[in-house]
């Protein structure tokens, strides 16, 4: 069985019945990446040596305890290049971090490693996770495995494309305004953003601290739940991680949606939605209805100010988070005898245009005299948005909507920032409110994948998986393989 066609659950079984081994799986995976990466450019680097060590350790664990070994044992994973791994160059797709090798491994990644996962490489992304098309990578764009002339979405475009290209059964990304769900939607895979505080951010190169959350890409909802439950849980190194115990999303995964009240936010179907996307999502809603859920029209009127709120808070935090890239201690330094010129040159040459734009926006929003009008007001609106969700969730169990207003668009198609920012209009409110959200494949528009977004109240991550799983199992969309995956298999 090839890893390209497989899920974590199937591969875990093959590793236990002796039909495969972690080394074989790794070899297949690396060969597959060799075949696809020239087309997708999903990987910035592969990590063969680390992977071989981990595969051998996984093999020992599987031999010793085949039944009690964690499901992730021996499973290849790809990591977005914003996740720090001890001894592995980590750049956040930025020139400013060229050559930076962290001396530590982040918590979520360490939990995957502790469970026996095999890290095959670091994936391309938008620089510092800022973007919705992966075109902002300093190291070149990523091709969508469904059509390599089109974008995979972003910012976790490499991770999404790698799963869609059949390289790996799962990958980690990070989601600040839709950076997992939107590329999952555009690449036809499952992408999950956990409740803010469920997964430790320790070791995640920060973009916007109050919005960032690490989450999985996978080919099935169940697989995404497996990865999520491996990485979730309180971490004393992250003070924003929640101390409450994580409920196992697999326990009620198959409980179905019969009797569930699902809200359909009308605002999420406006705002430049592509007719093909609308059609696919509306069909998905009928499937859910057929499974016994009831649909309820709801309104989230603050949605339209969500975008501007997000584009004050996220850049404000980013302007501060990115101040450490000053050429003094690591990464790029453009030498100059005068300190101020060393700073200016390093940051000018180290950062790409979108990063600079957001640093400027954020610096402005926090400036004395503007703070109240921008940052403080944005925080108030953020509270309103969160309150609106809370009110809606008093009536419904979950919300269902498109993940992205459009399917994958051609590279270079969106050259003005505002049209690019619109990509995340229905995903970023979820980050502003700290909610869990998933994108699950729900059909095609013009031959390109479309995703269904499911959103639940905070800490109801399991409910998100349950709804998404019920939908997925009732349809065949998740079995569809990208042309690139087919070709490389």
């Amino acid at each position, binding site marked *: 069985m090839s890893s390209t066609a497989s899920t974590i659950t199937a591969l875990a079984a093959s590793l236990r019945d002796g039909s495969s081994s972690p080394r074989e799986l790794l070899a297949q995976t690396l060969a597959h990446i060799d075949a696809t990466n020239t087309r997708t450019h999903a990987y910035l680097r592969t990590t063969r040596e680390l992977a071989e060590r981990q595969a051998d350790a996984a093999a020992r664990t599987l031999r010793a305890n085949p039944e009690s070994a964690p499901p992730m044992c021996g499973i290849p994973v790809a990591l977005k290049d914003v996740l720090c791994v001890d001894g592995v160059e980590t750049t956040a797709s930025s020139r400013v971090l060229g050559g930076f090798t962290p001396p*530590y491994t*982040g918590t979520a990644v360490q939990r995957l490693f502790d469970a026996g996962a095999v890290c095959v490489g670091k994936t391309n992304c938008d620089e510092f996770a800022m973007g919705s098309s992966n075109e902002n990578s300093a190291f070149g764009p990523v091709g969508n495995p469904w059509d390599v002339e089109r974008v995979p979405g972003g910012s976790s475009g490499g991770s999404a494309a790698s799963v869609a290209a059949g390289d790996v059964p799962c990958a980690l990304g990070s989601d600040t305004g839709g950076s997992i769900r939107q590329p999952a939607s555009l690449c036809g895979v499952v992408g999950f953003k956990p409740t803010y505080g469920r997964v430790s951010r320790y070791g995640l190169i920060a973009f916007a601290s109050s919005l960032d959350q690490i989450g999985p890409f996978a080919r099935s909802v169940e697989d995404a739940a497996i990865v999520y439950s491996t990485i979730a849980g309180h971490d004393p190194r992250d*003070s924003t991680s929640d101390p409450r115990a994580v409920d196992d999303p697999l326990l009620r995964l198959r409980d179905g949606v019969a009797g569930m009240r699902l809200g359909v936010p009308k605002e999420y179907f406006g705002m430049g939605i592509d007719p093909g996307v609308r059609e696919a999502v509306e069909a998905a809603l009928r499937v859910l209805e057929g499974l016994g859920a009831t649909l309820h029209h709801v309104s989230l009127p603050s949605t339209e100010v969500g975008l501007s709120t997000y584009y004050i808070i996220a850049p404000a935090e980013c*302007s*501060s988070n*990115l101040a450490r890239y000053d050429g*003094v201690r690591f990464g790029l330094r453009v030498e100059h005898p005068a*300190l101020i010129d060393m700073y200016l040159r390093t940051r000018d040459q180290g950062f790409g245009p979108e990063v600079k734009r957001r640093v400027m926006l954020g*610096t402005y929003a926090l400036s004395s005299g503007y703070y109240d009008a921008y940052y403080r007001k944005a925080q108030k609106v953020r509270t309103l948005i969160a309150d609106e969700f809370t009110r809606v969730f008093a009536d419904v169990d979950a919300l269902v909507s498109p993940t992205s207003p459009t399917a994958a668009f051609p590279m270079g198609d969106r050259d003005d920032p505002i049209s690019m920012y619109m990509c995340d209009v229905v995903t970023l409110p979820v980050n502003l409110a700290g909610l869990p959200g998933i994108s699950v494949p729900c059909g095609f528009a013009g031959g390109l994948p479309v995703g269904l977004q499911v959103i639940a109240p905070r800490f109801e991550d399991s409910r998100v998986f349950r709804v998404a799983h019920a939908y997925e199992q009732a349809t065949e969309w998740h079995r569809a393989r990208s042309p690139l995956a087919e070709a490389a298999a």
Partner: protein
Amino acid sequence: MTQTAETPAIAALERYEAVIGLEVHAQLLTVSKMFCGCSAAYTDAAPNDNTCPVCLGLPGVLPVINRQAIEYTVRTALALECEIPEFTKFDRKNYFYPDLPKGYQISQYDTPLSRNGRIEFPVGGETVRCGITRVHLEEDTGTMHHAGDVLQSATQSFVDFNRSGVPLMEIVGEPDLRTAEHAREYLVRLRQLLMYIGVNDGNLEKGSFRCDANISLRSREAAELGTKVEVKNMNSFRAVHRALESEIERQAAVLDSGAVIQQETRGWVETRGRTVSQRSKEYAHDYRYFPEPDLPPLRLDSAFVERVRASLPELPPARARRFVDQYGLNAYDASVLTSTREDADTYEELVRLGVAAKLAANWLMGDVAALANEHRLGLRDSGLGIAGLSRLLGLLDSARINGPTAKELLTELYVRGGDPEAIVLERGLGQVSDETELEALVDAAIAANPVAATDFRGGKQQALGQLMRHVKEATGGRADMPLVNRLLRERLSR
């Protein structure tokens, strides 16, 4: 302590009133740094050894609040009679400098851990009362070492992050101080207090206790405040005093000439004995404070605050008042004996061991203090120890040895230790206070000094000295001299 000489600054203060407020940064004596597990005791490590990804500000790291630092700050705030709001949070103060690894300092902006405190202290005869605006918590920066002079002209600069992230408490005082001497005394008292409650080691030279001043002058007739100048770079109490005197003088001269004071930051240059402009207002930073998103706000419940309050030791002013009431000391002695916690504890231990209150005070403040200073060794840690001194003073109090012998023994035993009683017996140092024995010696003295005896009888009081010396020498200095005095007078009055 009181300034008697008429300095130019004091002359200036006849025309102008100085308005001075101090900001103190004090490193906390916590086990670990503010947001990571590295040691807060950083001075002994090789450069950049006392660091980790967190205090180096590497990509992807997050801060975790040090509970002990919160407790120490609350402790300080309570000792300064501050209010402790239930809600507090950390903020980011954004600026670029090579010793600031994250490009921002985690500090507190609009919701400090505490506000509205006060400290009172005597200066000359008056009691000065200075408000405490706030006490808040932040992290220290790294340190820079330049090959060359200053950063701007250095050929090479090195950064050491061993100090980066050490908990730093900022104590902002109200502009209630009016003279350089007020400022110095404020710092002396504040430092004493921080050391007393065990939160800071009070080292100005090494910078664990640092001070900046804001100072403005206004004419005695004017109601509104003058333009304030910030003065930095003062690393001793003397430097603070001199810098402020010099600044008062400078500002008075500017105002006298009809010019205006520029709002700026000035640095004290010890070698030149004056302040020098460092940065004017146009270059003032916009720190772009905003709430630290990596740290949730803190709620300090009243049970925690009360627990910290209950753990506070008796503070110097209260302890001094008690010393007056309980031990009958005068206010000055009580204040000297309570100036450090160790001194005050030593005093009370000595009294508990049975030494008379006044006797213990005199010896501790006199000979013991001199020896402690000479040997850089406190009584508690000396060879003699507190118990040894109590035995020595016991011999004195029971008249078994006299004062001079006690002093000699103290000097001899302070460092090397030993049992005073055994030495007295062994060397026969015991005081000669047997009346019969002394009477014989008194008679001998009179016989040997007939002229002095006649003079005394004739009313010449000082003639007694010669007779007393005779007896003293005859006993090798061990005679009970008050008794000798009485016996001589009795004999000569017959």
